[in-house]
């Protein structure tokens, strides 16, 4: 019997990447487990807090969460359960990790998506416009604004927006995540702007640089001398400049998804960022493991999606693969 061979290079590429992603997640899970194990502290004592603790009580809690087992056995127990689809129970809240995460993942994803839309919708067009008028007053003022955006600490931007738009003008709520639908969007508006500010400024600079770089290429001068219309030239330039921008957008989404913590704390939003922070200090292993793996998976799959997109928009890449 012959083994079925993957004829399509694309399918082979995807399969290899998926296998590599699986391996990466396994390694990350082990490293995070080990790091958390090495940090000082004892979840059983954290659960009890400052109150009388008898050795029997501590032993009973440790037994319940397998904290009394050896490090490797704890990891293997965890891994076995995960492979069976069981992410365990949070030590801090005694709630199934999947229950704990479901609503929070949605909130963080919505927040990241809104910030992403803002970033893409504003930073890229502004970056292109600035590049087109490179050196003009418009370009310079946008560039200065971008430097401020990159430099301003997230929480400071958040508090400023809260004060101006939440309290002073009263246009937006100052905390919480709303009741879904439009109310959710209204509640997430300020956090999304806060989150988008820094990364949007970065994407603006990147777009501007990419487009300016393309405009300096010889083919542009050649196209101009051949008398191509501005519209035609713009289409060629943008298509070429799109490659670095697209690659960066993948990273932007991954960054937004994994970087919501400061915004979540400032706006009292209960996403996975704030949960990760409190779970790390509590040493709530099952929760930390689930969140880090989820974030790693989002980053890995976004990177894969970007590569596929790259494949789609750049004919050179396609040709290399086929050869």
């Amino acid at each position, binding site marked *: 019997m012959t083994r079925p061979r993957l004829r399509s290079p694309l399918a082979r590429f995807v399969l290899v990447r998926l296998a590599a992603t699986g391996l990466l997640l396994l390694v990350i899970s082990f490293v995070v487990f080990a790091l958390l194990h090495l940090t000082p502290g004892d979840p059983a004592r954290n659960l009890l807090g400052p109150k009388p603790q008898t050795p029997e009580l501590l032993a009973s809690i440790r037994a319940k969460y397998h904290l009394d087992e050896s490090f490797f056995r704890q990891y293997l127990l965890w891994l076995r359960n995960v492979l069976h689809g069981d992410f365990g129970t949070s030590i801090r809240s005694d*709630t199934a990790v999947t229950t704990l995460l479901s609503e929070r993942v949605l909130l963080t994803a919505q927040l990241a998506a809104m910030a992403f839309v803002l970033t893409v919708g504003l930073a890229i067009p502004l970056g292109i416009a600035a590049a087109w008028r490179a050196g003009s007053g418009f370009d310079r003022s946008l560039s200065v604004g971008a430097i401020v955006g990159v430099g301003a600490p997230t929480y400071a931007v958040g508090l400023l927006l809260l004060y101006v738009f939440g*309290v002073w003008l009263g246009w937006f709520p100052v905390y919480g995540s709303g009741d879904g639908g439009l109310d959710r969007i209204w509640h997430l508006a300020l956090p999304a702007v806060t989150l988008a500010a820094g990364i949007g400024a970065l994407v603006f600079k990147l777009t501007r640089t990419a487009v300016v770089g393309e405009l300096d290429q010889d083919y542009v001068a050649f196209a101009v001398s051949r008398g191509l219309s501005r519209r035609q030239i713009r289409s060629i330039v943008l298509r070429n400049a799109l490659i670095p921008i697209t690659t960066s957008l993948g990273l932007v989404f991954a960054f937004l998804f994994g970087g919501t913590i400061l915004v979540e704390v400032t706006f009292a939003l209960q996403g996975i960022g704030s949960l990760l922070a409190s779970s790390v200090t509590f040493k709530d292993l099952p929760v930390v493991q689930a969140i880090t793996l989820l974030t790693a998976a989002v980053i890995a799959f976004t990177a894969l999606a970007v590569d596929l997109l790259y494949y789609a928009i750049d004919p050179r890449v396609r040709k290399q693969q086929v050869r």
Partner: protein
Amino acid sequence: MSKSPQFSRRTVLQGAGASALLMLIAACSDSAKNATAPGSTSPGATGPGTTAAGTTTTVAASAQDIELLTVALPSSLSNLYPGKEAGIFNYYVATLVSEGLVSPDSNGTLVPALAEKWEQPTPTTYVYTLRADAKFSDGTPVTADDIVYSVGLSKDDKVSPNTAYYWANVKSAAKTGANEVTITLTEPDVAFEWGPAASNALWVTSKKYVEAHKGELGTPTSLLFGTGPYKVTKFQPDSMVELERVDTWWGGKAPVKTVRINFIPEETTRILARKSGDVDLAISISLDQLKQWEGTDHTKVLTAPDRSYVGIDFNTAVAPFDDIHVRKAIAYACNRKAYVEKLLGGHGEVATALTTPLQLETIMSPTEARTALNLLDLPYDLDLAKAELAKSKVPTGFTTKVEISSSAPQVSSAFQALAQAVKPLGIIIDIKEVPVEEWYNTIASKDFGLAYMWYFNTTGDPAELATWFFGDGNPASYKNPAVTALMASSKKETDPKKRAQIIIDAQKTALADVPYVPLWWGEAAIAINDKYTVKDFGSYTFLSPWTPRILTVG
């Protein structure tokens, strides 16, 4: 009782290092505010013994129907059943939904809850008679079996790791009549009386309900279920909980229809939420930011002693703190009066014992309580500190370390002041701020000779903290047979005054060995929309069904 673990604002702000902007915002908010609204006066510090601070307003207030009360807590709840997560705020929510057999009133005296009366026929037996009109929020009547089952839940260290301790001395809980439950202790313990209260270690729930939810309680899929004036309608862990009034409560209809409780860990956000009117009541506001709260429009700040204790623990099993001269040297260098005046802005009281005065005020006057608790003969005197150190095994000094929770900035400041004071003696104290969970791990740890305790008493029992601090596994590794004997005899003494005296004697004997140095008894503060006020605000306010205490002004 612990403060709930929280992701502290300070940890976020530290390292980010742009406090200038914060100051700018604070300045903006000050300049933006209008003239202080009538009635929004802050009462400031209260004199000793005043349980209801801040009721300085002369405007008439009455119980009126309130459609929605929004409450903001400074830290997150991840489980609503206090047996599982026992931060002080878990109790504040649970006491609206669940009840025990007894309950503390606003002075801390135990009064009936689900038990209409109780008696103690023998020193080890407590007989509770249940009220006939008690119902769960779904309308089903409470049975003696439900009580016995709920005691079992609270006693089970797997289900209720935080309360199992309180039931360790309970031999049995049994139904002894249609409406009667008898709890039998292994050995007499007068303090047990506090156990079956929702402010301490019992939240009566329905056996049928918990069994239908596979033994889970307090999670979003198995909400806390009880007999109180409210039921939980929505719970998002670490985000919010919403309570809806029920008509099944034996105590009648509560005045507030919906209570929405949000968890807002960032204090600046909480202040902004009050400014914008999104929050009516902020519980446990930071003393650090009292000025900003007081400067907020239409906001009244109330403060009152809260039965909390802050003090130094020396682990007497760790060198050089095994030497009483070293412990005394440090104790003499504590300027406790200055800590209270400067660091707490007067919102506290110099502590002279482990028992807080409020825990004696049910049996004596506030002045008598303070006189009785004046057990410490360690004035602030650096010369005496120097003399003590000279007598010790380390006369030229030593280096030590202490870890302080980032949620306790005043404690951190006090230790900074102490470190400055003992530096000329050659004692170097390295102070590190850590997340609250790391602090837990320094308590009773052999790695730390120097530590501190910030303890919230849950009961009005004067022996509460002493029982832990002088018992097995205490944070100071302290052993003194005379003290142990006194504590044992206190458990059997049923006369409250005589018992209090025994507990005081035990503390006097123990504190002479300086295993602990009491620093201050704390105060709590709340901020409330000046449309409302809280009747008799004090340390027991939120430990029994508390919405009837929210009064509407005018």
